[in-house]
């Protein structure tokens, strides 16, 4: 199915919650309102003819210039063989978004990673802990304004 058509189906179903269709990314992306992401994802997975079986990638992006953060979902359907990018944009100072862990269990670790490295909080996540960094690490390194620590415990960095 063409991404454009998927966008059509989505905006028909969710109306104003679907904000924008961006064609020049690869794969083309759909910008979704933050509070609707879990519903949209569930629909994308279970909706007729959509069948987005797997979440290929979930990335957090720090858009510092725009004062925002984004969470990008790269979805893929192994049954229908089509793919699409879903994006949500969050407030940079207080990034909160619903979890999609209930839709794709594999999202668990990706969300933990986004939380770890960018500080995006996924509401409803079952086990939101740091994953790559030590549990007592301060700050979120992938933020553009991250300040490198001088010391970690007894080590000079």
């Amino acid at each position, binding site marked *: 199915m063409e991404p454009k058509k998927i966008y059509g189906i989505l905006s028909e179903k969710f109306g104003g919650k679907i904000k924008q269709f961006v064609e*020049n*990314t*690869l*794969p083309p992306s759909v910008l979704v309102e933050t509070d609707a992401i879990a519903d949209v994802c569930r629909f994308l997975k279970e909706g007729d003819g959509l069948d987005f*079986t*797997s*979440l*290929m*990638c979930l*990335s957090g*992006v*720090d858009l510092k210039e725009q004062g925002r953060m984004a969470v*990008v979902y*790269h979805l893929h359907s*192994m049954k229908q*063989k089509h793919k699409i*990018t879903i994006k949500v944009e969050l407030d940079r100072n207080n990034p909160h978004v619903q979890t999609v862990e209930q839709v*794709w*269990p*594999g999202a*668990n*670790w990706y969300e933990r990673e986004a939380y770890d*490295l960018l500080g995006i909080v996924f509401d409803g996540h079952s086990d939101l802990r*740091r*994953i*790559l*960094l*030590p549990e007592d690490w301060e700050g979120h*390194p*992938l933020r553009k304004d991250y300040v490198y620590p001088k010391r970690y415990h007894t080590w000079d960095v």
Partner: protein
Amino acid sequence: MTNADEKFMQVNMGPQHPSTHGVLRLLVTTDGEVLSGVKPYIGYLHRALEKIAERVTYPQFSPFTDRLDYLASMNCNLAYAMTVEKLLNIEVPRRAQILRVIMAELNRISSHLIAFGSFSSDMGAFTPFLFGIREREFINDLFEIACGARLTYNYIRIGGVSKDIPGGFIEKTREFLDYFPAKIKEYNELLSYNAIFIKRLANIAVISPDDAFDYGITGPNLRASGIKWDLRREEPYLIYNELDFDIPVGKGEMGKTGDAWDRYMMRIYEMEQSAKIVRQCLDLLAPGDYTAKVSKVLKPPAGEVYVRAENPRGELGFYLISDGSTKPYRLKIRAPSFANLSIIPKLARGVMIADLVAIIGSLDIILPEIDR
């Protein structure tokens, strides 16, 4: 360690444990030999590659991709190069494409040889590991002739490959391809169809297709569940659509489809197919440019791409955002082993300690890629 339920014992498996394939730590809750839960802890090998990517230029990041999945550096190089090429709209010359396929498939063989070998030593048989290493040396020699390095090749570059193959490479590769099938037969007789080995693996840790989708499992592990999905076929890149090869899928020969034995066997089958691909590519190889014209300073236009390639361990994806400068704005690496490992808590419930080792080995995870 305190535990409310006295019946269970908590054991740390790793970070230093012989069979955790690197520095994976599993917090195992057991009732005697039977596991009641596993909690993986990763990140011991975190080198902040994604952060480094934001501080180095596009060509400079290429050597770092070697260090993602160090057993399949060529494939990682390839995926990264394809990502940047997509952003820059570079057309890669045909000879370079064929060379890339040859290297990627040879690397797939060498990676699967390690997977096979380390899995066998996890299962307590040491000899197959040495045999796997022996054949891998052959491939390493080939790579060394081609690019001068034996492990971190940095051979496939943005626009093509770093240099043309020298004379004698093709003959040596053919020699290897002639020598290899007999060895696969030997592996099968020695290990794959060994009754003890089958008993250890059949019906262990079955991944159903739905679970595989849910957790984003890809590569041989997905195909073992009976799903015929291979990016080389589904979204052909390079010259894969011209090549004739099969995609082996798990059929549950020794038990249920998608069990550990199927996952193991996928790798043996794929080695055969890769050898077939390399043979065809050698025939296709015609003189030509080995790299496209790429300017020294790369300044891709602003934009974002998500490109993936079929790595030996699954789909390696690069999500690259460019802001028009010489350095990536954001590079997210979607490592196949990361997703493959995340299913372990689900699989390792009610199995025995020895099975946990079999599960880790059959998923063929590699930690540098997970921790990045």
